[in-house]
């Protein structure tokens, strides 16, 4: 665990008597390694360690009676500040409906999250309509239809053979017509390097007039998080992040990487297979988890 590792580093630093920038730098190598083991992306880890080092070689640590503990505290603080402090809520737009478009890699948990979000908003007295523009995955639309029923949300199904763009536009028309507060539009999983599919995503955004595009990412993602996050953010624009399957024991370094790469807030954590498995993001908890 990074915390144990940091405690070890702390003991060693304090036990070394004379504290120098050199021995601090060496212990920071351990910190970098521990971050990599937690799936923090290489450049993000290097960046975080550089911030810690800048503070650690200052008087704050060199003069401290427990320099080791000081360094540990600095790591924790920098981690939390990078993850973002203020709890961010899903921005409702003044227009009705607020349109939320879900995007991400294959299997990241988008469809399940659509159901969870519908239930979450429903519990806050919002009327939610779900629709799926996923014409690629077998039975994807059936999957969402079933979840809509379980979430007690509205569901609209386009005529058989409708193209994604038509589905997006049709869903918006339907949600407006029936006065829903939110339209949550599910999309097919796609690779960020699949040009036609990224173009499709841009089309979905335009046709649905999406107010929020949420990037849904698997919490056990490794080094890919930055590359994927940057590509989606750069290509179609991302307004918020969702990390799923955080009910597992993956350390979740992807959270830090994604936040650094996109600068966008993490809104939700998926914490279970059922529709009640959804939590608002809590930076302190995730920092603690990455730290181990």
């Amino acid at each position: 665990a990074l915390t144990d590792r940091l405690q070890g580093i702390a003991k060693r630093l304090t036990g070394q008597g004379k504290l120098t920038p050199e021995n601090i730098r060496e212990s920071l190598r351990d910190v970098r390694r521990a971050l990599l083991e937690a799936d923090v992306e290489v450049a993000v880890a290097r960046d975080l360690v550089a911030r810690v080092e800048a503070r650690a070689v200052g008087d704050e640590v060199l003069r401290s009676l427990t320099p080791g503990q000081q360094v540990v505290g600095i790591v924790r603080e920098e981690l939390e500040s990078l993850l973002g402090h203020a709890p961010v809520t899903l921005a409702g737009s003044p227009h009705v409906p607020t349109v939320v478009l879900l995007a991400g890699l294959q299997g990241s948990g988008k469809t399940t999250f659509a159901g969870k979000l519908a239930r979450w908003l429903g519990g806050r007295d919002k009327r939610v309509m779900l629709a799926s523009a996923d014409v690629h995955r077998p039975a994807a639309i059936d999957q969402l239809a079933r979840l809509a029923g379980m979430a007690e949300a509205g569901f609209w199904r386009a005529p058989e053979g409708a193209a994604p763009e038509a589905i997006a536009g049709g869903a918006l028309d339907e949600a407006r017509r029936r006065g829903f507060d939110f339209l949550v539009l599910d999309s097919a999983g796609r690779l960020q390097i699949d040009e036609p599919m990224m173009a499709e995503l841009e089309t979905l955004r335009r046709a649905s007039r999406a107010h929020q595009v949420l990037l849904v990412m698997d919490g056990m993602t490794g080094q890919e998080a930055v590359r994927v996050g940057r590509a989606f953010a750069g290509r179609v624009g991302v307004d918020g992040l969702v990390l799923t399957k955080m009910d597992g024991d993956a350390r979740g370094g992807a959270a830090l990487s994604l936040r650094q790469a996109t600068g966008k807030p993490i809104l939700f954590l998926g914490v279970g297979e059922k529709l009640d498995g959804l939590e608002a993001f809590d930076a302190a908890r995730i920092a603690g988890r990455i730290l181990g």
Partner: protein
Amino acid sequence: ALGRRGAIDEATRAALEEALLAADAGPAAAERLMDEAERRMRADPALDLRHALERGVAQLMGATRARFTPGAERPWVALLVGVNGVGKTTLAGKLAAGFARDGRSTLLVAADTFRAAATEQLEVWASRAGVELVRARDGADPAAVVHDGLSAALARGHEVVLVDTAGRLHTKRNLMAELEKVGRVCARLVPGSPHHVLLVLDATLGQNGLQQAREFQRATPITSLAITKLDGTARGGAVLAIADQLKLPVSVVGLGEGLDDWQPFDPEAFARGLFE
């Protein structure tokens, strides 16, 4: 930097370490592979760093060879297991199509009775692959479906049975117990089965992979691994630690969302892919 021969300078070593880390090898495996590559280069001055590393990876991943190929047992029963969303159902369809094309009478069993539209999804794949499907009767649990599936296979003389199971996080004790039960049901109906347990891993998987493999191994002995979504930018380096520490081989890789998008695992191609 990756093509440099002779002595390795710090910049070269760093660039190389970065490539391994970016591929999800993790710091421990990256360090081990680097040290080993340096030894290899000292023994053979004609070798450059990149090739020394590729050789090391190919050797590690090729140490235990595994094919996802039916043995002599009839029916030959395989289970696809793994955490949520990695590509089990899709892979089951692809593999079934391959066996059917080879002229083997193949049966798919839809043992995911939990997730919304899981059976419908596998139904589409079964029809694309041209194979029969056994699905749950109303309210049945996975063990019951597997029981029905194997009974049908025995009765109809199927050569191959591919059981698609529900995604499950290895941290869920009850779901891992369910998997153990499925294994026992197989053995009762077809002694010696399941003959192959395929643990499916997503190429984007980070350092949690080793823990996943360890836990699944405790529920049902894993025969081989599959790495899916290698058509993306992810390299699947998480399998390096699993190969090193658990000696589990990779048999199959997924390369897309179509019926034919899979290949037998090739250690050399995998090794090259890490540094491309």
